[in-house]
């Protein structure tokens, strides 16, 4: 029986992956463990391995495609000429109506995995959770993995129980923004029929955990890594005296056992954790719609009439102009599927003439250009600078500004996004 190859979920908030290239060609023989293709996410490029031996067939996605997570992109068949149609992507059927909020699914931790054993819940219904908090542990045939909540909020419902073998993609928990009045814990209904795709995520896959490769989060399973943290009595005493949590070292992947010398790192990691928690807590997220964008036409005109070939520089210039309050330097970092380009004062002296620079220093604002994608919404949290994500919309464009309260005031954030939306709709607004 052919095995479906799906686009794996490599990040918690990822719903598509860019297929960078195929390493194996259609019809080529593959062995279990061979790298099949490369996927790029906002964080990294990873090789995805074959989970069974056979021949690569039914390749439906090409290099450069932005493929929804869970979509079948090829098969591994027993013969090179297998023409059996790939299983179409099926949304998982959540058979209960869970409370409103972000749905957390059983992640696909391996390409050939269709269920995950829920080892334990680390949070109870009603608990407050931060995005980085471990929500539950999943055991696969390879390892036990801690799955982070992925969202800040409250546990509104736990829909599976420890010990359950849950189909990949099935919703196991709901995280709500508001503290739920009656958080529920209910056993999930019987798993859907086996005909469903092996690793199909929920329609809006809000949470999926790494597929095969990422060793960063996928911990090997020595006894030392589960249960009690291995630390010397001295370090425990010193950490306790300063109110530090040794789990921070473990979550950071620092190898155990821990000793007094690890205290310095613990202090650093702890202060960082506190800072990022504070940053997230004070996050701003504003969305805007540009029903009909005039930028594309403007860029085409600029290219033909003014010889401005770098449309990204134009885009950066419009954003710098939207952000500008005074004469201070503005560095716009434009992220485009992993490649980051910096522009120094791209609105000056003349729009579109700024030269792209290598990444250097802290940008004033980050522009994540996702116009060519299937992504409809993001909640990534604040970064080192305010981030504006441009997304495709049914007509025109969608804009999302995310920043911390410390980075932009409420009025400053609104003003910047308003101006940028206006410029994208009609670039001439830039000179008004």
């Amino acid at each position: 029986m052919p095995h479906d190859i799906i686009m794996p979920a490599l990040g918690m908030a990822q719903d598509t992956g860019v297929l960078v290239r195929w390493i194996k060609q259609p019809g080529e023989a593959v062995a279990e463990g061979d790298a099949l293709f490369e996927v790029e996410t906002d964080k990294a490029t990873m090789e995805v391995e074959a989970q069974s031996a056979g021949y690569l067939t039914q390749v439906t996605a090409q290099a450069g495609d932005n493929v929804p997570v869970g979509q079948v992109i090829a098969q591994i068949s027993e013969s090179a000429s297998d023409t059996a149609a790939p299983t179409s992507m099926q949304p998982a059927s959540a058979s209960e109506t869970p409370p409103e909020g972000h749905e957390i699914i059983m992640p696909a931790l391996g390409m050939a995995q269709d269920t995950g054993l829920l080892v334990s819940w680390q949070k109870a219904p009603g608990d407050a959770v931060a995005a980085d908090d471990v929500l539950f542990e999943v055991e696969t045939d390879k390892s036990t993995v801690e799955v982070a909540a992925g969202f800040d909020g409250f546990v509104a419902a736990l829909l599976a129980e420890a010990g359950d073998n849950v189909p990949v993609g099935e919703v196991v928990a709901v995280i709500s923004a508001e503290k739920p009045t009656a958080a529920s814990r209910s056993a999930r209904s019987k798993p859907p029929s086996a005909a469903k795709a092996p690793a199909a995520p929920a329609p809006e896959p809000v949470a999926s955990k790494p597929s095969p490769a990422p060793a960063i989060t996928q911990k090997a399973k020595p006894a030392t890594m589960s249960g009690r943290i291995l630390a010397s009595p001295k370090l425990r005493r010193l950490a306790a005296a300063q109110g530090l949590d040794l789990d921070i070292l473990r979550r950071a992947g620092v190898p155990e056992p821990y000793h007094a010398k690890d205290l310095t790192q613990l202090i650093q990691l702890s202060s960082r954790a506190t800072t990022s928690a504070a940053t997230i807590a004070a996050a701003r997220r504003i969305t805007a719609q540009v029903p009909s964008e005039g930028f594309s036409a403007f860029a085409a005109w600029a290219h033909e009439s003014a010889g401005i070939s770098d449309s990204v520089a134009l885009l950066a210039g419009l954003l710098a102009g939207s952000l500008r309050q005074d004469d201070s330097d503005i560095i716009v970092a434009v992220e485009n599927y992993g490649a980051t380009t910096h522009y120094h004062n791209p609105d000056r002296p003349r729009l579109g003439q700024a030269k792209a620079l290598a990444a250097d220093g802290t940008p004033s604002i980050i522009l994540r250009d996702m116009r060519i994608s299937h992504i409809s919404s993001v909640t990534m949290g604040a970064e080192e600078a305010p981030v504006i994500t441009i997304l495709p919309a049914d007509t025109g464009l969608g804009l999302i500004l995310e920043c911390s309260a410390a980075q932009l005031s409420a009025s400053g954030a609104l003003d910047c996004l308003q101006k940028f939306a206006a410029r994208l709709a009609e670039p001439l607004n830039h000179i008004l």
Partner: protein
Amino acid sequence: MREITLSQAVNEAIAEEMRRDASVFIIGEDVAEAGTPFKVLSGLVEEFGTDRVIDTPIAEPGFMGIAVGAAMTGSRPIVDLMFGDFIFLIMDQLCNQAAKTHYMSGGKLNVPLVLRTNLGATRRSAAQHSQSLHALVAHIPGLKVAMPSSALEAKGLMKTAIRDNNPVVIFEDKLMYQDKAEVPEGEFLIPFGVANVKRQGTDITLIGTSSMVQVCEKAAEILAAEGISAEVIDPRTIVPLDEETLLASARKTSRVIVVDEGHQSYGITGEIASRINEKAFYYLDAPVLRMGAMDVPIPFSPALEDITVPTPETVAANARKLCSGEMIHAA
């Protein structure tokens, strides 16, 4: 200061005490004209005569019993047990009689007896003459146990032992009799229960007894060259034990290895490690390691015998592990 051998230091201490106190006498095999196989007591019979330096037949339980009785009735015998391994022969006289008489007589009787014997392997003396059996007697309440690590301690501890009103067992390392050290002439006593910090350090504490003090000092030299600062402590007496000095050092360095030539299992390394564990636990950054002789009869084969006991290299290797933060699965 003049240097004398450990053998000369013991001889000098006993001679001084015999001159000072007429109730002190020596009893044992080959102690008079032979001056013991190690020539430790040479010359004493010439000065003090055969009434106070008494040769016995080969009958350890007999002369040990005589000595215990003599001690109860006002003498201060020094019993010479030719090899520490022979202690099994006198266990009743030592542990049931000497150790308990003061207690069981309601304090009416004292046993001011010194049992001089030895320990130590690597002399090619085979399994029945190479043991280090001090843990056997340290286990028995009522006995004090001294373990001199050089000629200096040999003299100072011997004089203190002879003046003690209770039974004291002194274990000398049979390989150290010719080792020299600076030793004060005349009156020089080392109190029991006072450890000697032989070398100051900050990263790890090496606690050694008897000849293992030298081993620890050599290990500390090796470690110093690698940037690891080892503190070396000689407890000098294991009963009474100077816990405070050991604990203070453990708290300071947070890592400890206890090195002793007795068999590792159920030995004094385990006792000392355990006390540090109980009383300095929250200061420890690594498990306290024991290093003793392997749990095998001491081999006669030189190649095997030499690897049976701790060496500077093996101590340094373990110290390196502890200081590196490596996961310790101590055997």
